[in-house]
């Protein structure tokens, strides 16, 4: 398969891994954060830790859109859907995320009309087909998914579809990175920049990280070879004492981003003064709300939103894990009270959540005594 096979070629991967071993100074410990949850997933999915030097520590960042959503927002969305007999439409990732009264799936089993959609346009289609019902799309995600929400809202307005609204939880990646860098307990050497988000915003918005924070950033793809190449590029910069933004994912990410997508976002959304992130607290100018011109399609303006705030269970350390301060297995609940079957935090639900990725792909490997060799 084009674009996949060439980035999974064992020979090239082994070469890249050897290059990393050559570049990494054995006397130094490297802390490199992959911001994006998709990268976290790929690192575990492809078992990349097995072929990296042990002094390269990959720290999982806050780029899992489901994980950073505070539980109160989920409660609010489900409360509206249940009280107003609204069809609750959301991505599959959301379906098992626990709210205080249960996940969307649990609400579905109790009678709330919950639908999985693959894009906001699918949710709009449900609204077209069910004119007697109201359909609320529970929007989550970074700049990756925000443009398609924006385009869908434009569509709804131009077609005059009024039984449709969006409960907007879109957030922006750069303020989250800033919050991480500002956090005193966080010492990082470099960043693997998000791949999907950058297809929309480009690479320019990361330049301050290199310039004023002195940390290299390499925007990376999601295949094993992409990630290893990005590490090579980061190590080269670190070795040379440089800090620049580089683009490893050129085949997909334009340096300037996607103008049309940015324009659509600007037309529909404006920045909220502040927004609560799970684990990171309130971050100013870090999330999007729907502009007043589209108030009719804004669920937060159409329905009374309870504005629930929920503190996570005491022992749950989602915030620390989300910030990269703790490793998933260091959370007291990991693998005990909290498993993918009975998740306490969203990090254990989403495929991009570091707890789920670690639990599914890695943690039982840790218990193995013998070394792992390939079967073939």
């Amino acid at each position, binding site marked *: *398969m084009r674009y*996949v096979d060439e980035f999974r070629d*064992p020979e090239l*991967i*082994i070469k890249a*891994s050897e290059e990393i071993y050559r570049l990494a100074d054995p006397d130094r410990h490297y802390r490199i954060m992959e911001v*994006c*949850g*998709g990268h976290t*997933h790929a690192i*575990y*999915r*492809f*078992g*990349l*830790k*097995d*072929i990296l030097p042990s002094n390269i520590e990959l720290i999982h960042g806050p780029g899992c*859109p489901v994980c950073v959503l505070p539980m109160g927002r989920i409660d609010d969305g489900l409360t509206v859907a249940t009280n107003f007999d609204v069809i609750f439409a959301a*991505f*599959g*990732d959301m*379906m*098992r995320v626990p709210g205080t009264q249960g996940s969307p*799936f*649990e609400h*579905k*089993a*109790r009678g709330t009309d919950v639908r*999985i*959609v*693959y*894009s906001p346009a*699918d949710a709009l289609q449900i609204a077209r087909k069910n004119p007697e019902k109201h359909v609320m799309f529970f929007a*989550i*995600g*970074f700049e*990756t*998914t925000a443009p398609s929400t924006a385009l869908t809202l434009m569509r709804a307005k131009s077609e005059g579809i009024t039984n449709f609204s969006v409960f907007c939880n879109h957030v922006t990646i750069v303020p989250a990175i800033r919050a991480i860098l500002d956090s005193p307990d966080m010492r990082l050497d470099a960043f693997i920049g998000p791949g999907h988000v950058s297809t929309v915003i480009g690479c320019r918005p990361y330049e301050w990280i290199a310039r004023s924070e002195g940390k290299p950033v390499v925007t990376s793809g999601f295949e*094993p070879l992409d990630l290893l190449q990005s590490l090579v590029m980061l190590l080269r910069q670190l070795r040379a004492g440089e800090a620049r933004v580089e683009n490893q994912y050129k085949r997909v990410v334009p340096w300037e981003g996607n103008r049309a997508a940015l324009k659509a976002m600007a037309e529909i959304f404006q920045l909220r003064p502040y927004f609560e992130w799970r684990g990171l607290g309130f971050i100013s100018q870090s999330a999007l709300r729907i502009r007043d011109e589209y108030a009719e399609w804004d669920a937060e303006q159409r329905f009374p939103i309870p504005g629930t705030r929920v503190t996570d269970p005491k022992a749950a350390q989602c915030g620390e894990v989300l910030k990269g301060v703790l490793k998933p297995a260091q959370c007291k609940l990991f693998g005990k009270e909290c498993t*993918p*079957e009975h998740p306490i935090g969203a990090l254990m639900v*989403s*495929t*991009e959540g570091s707890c789920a990725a670690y*639990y*599914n*792909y*890695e943690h*039982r*490997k840790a*218990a*193995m*005594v*013998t070394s*792992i*060799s*390939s*079967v*073939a």
Partner: protein
Amino acid sequence: MRSVLQLRTPQSGNGDQHQFGGLNGKPAVKTVAASVRFRDPQIEMAHGAGGKASRRLIEGLFAPLLFNNTAAPLGDAARVEIDGSAVAMTTDSFVVKPLKFPGGSIGELAVNGTMNDLAVSGARGQAMLVTFVLEEGLPTSVLSDEVHAMAAAAERAGVTIVGGDTKVVERGKADGMYITTTGIGKFMAHVVIDPQSVRPGDKIILSGPIGDHGITILLARGELDLEADLSSDTRCVLPLIETMAEEAAPGIRWMRDPTRGGVATSLNELARDCGLGIVLSEEDIPMRNEVRGACELLGLDALHVANEGQFLAVVAPEYTDAAVNALSQTAGGEDACVIGEVRNEPSCAVLVTTRYGGSRIVDMLVGDPLPRIC
């Protein structure tokens, strides 16, 4: 898909094993309350998805109250003894949307699925009962098509349909139709399926490419803007298993058809049942490019995707070549190959290794496979 004896409590169970009156005429001894430990407050879709929740429901509620634990561990069918002769028995319900999909339909699936459950238990299906639950308003032409499909599938599989039952439910209640088939079969000579007999060093054989059925259904629902030239792999695997058994019967230790929950779930169940580790080689797992592409796009692990015409077998190393050769010389078995082996570690888990030296654990499916977004 899932059927009777997979529904048993784990063999490595503790002292509260119980038995009650079974078909083999043993006296009823009931001390079950203690082992009922299903605590989920309500039934959700995940309980039917063939993964962890299904297993919890079966082991925590059905098995302790309903099943006779004295039966030998089989997997997909029960071993029933009547006056000293053993037969295999299994049942399966089919609920699929849409009723027709590229490569097959619910009627064909219903016959093949039950035949396959018997086949992977080492039995040749002989007779089958069919129950239809029909939705009021279902066009007769749709029903008639499915009955034709069943008749043709039964003839191909060499099984006789001997009776059945029909119920009609109100409009909006049964997605058109549900079909349940119950099969009874005769055990093949020298084939003994027992996860406890699995040993480190045994090889895992897979009959052909994975994921065709699950991805076909996902695409046939038309909810995704994706098209692929794919069709369901639904078929009866009995001919393949019979040829393999002719050449390698004494070496066959375990078989399973990886339906819902996919290869990963079946092998995790095996790992749990035998207490050993299953180590797979990623590059050796046969898969069509279309399936790979769709899985990449949707963020699914093909190892969790359903199959309807493949089976897994654990075969002793000295019989592996004979088994694979027999399969690959049989029509439909050309892609059969060894995908991994049984090791001591990781105990009770499945590990997938890659040629570049990376590895990952693959767990049972939790709930339905859900496409991810980002």
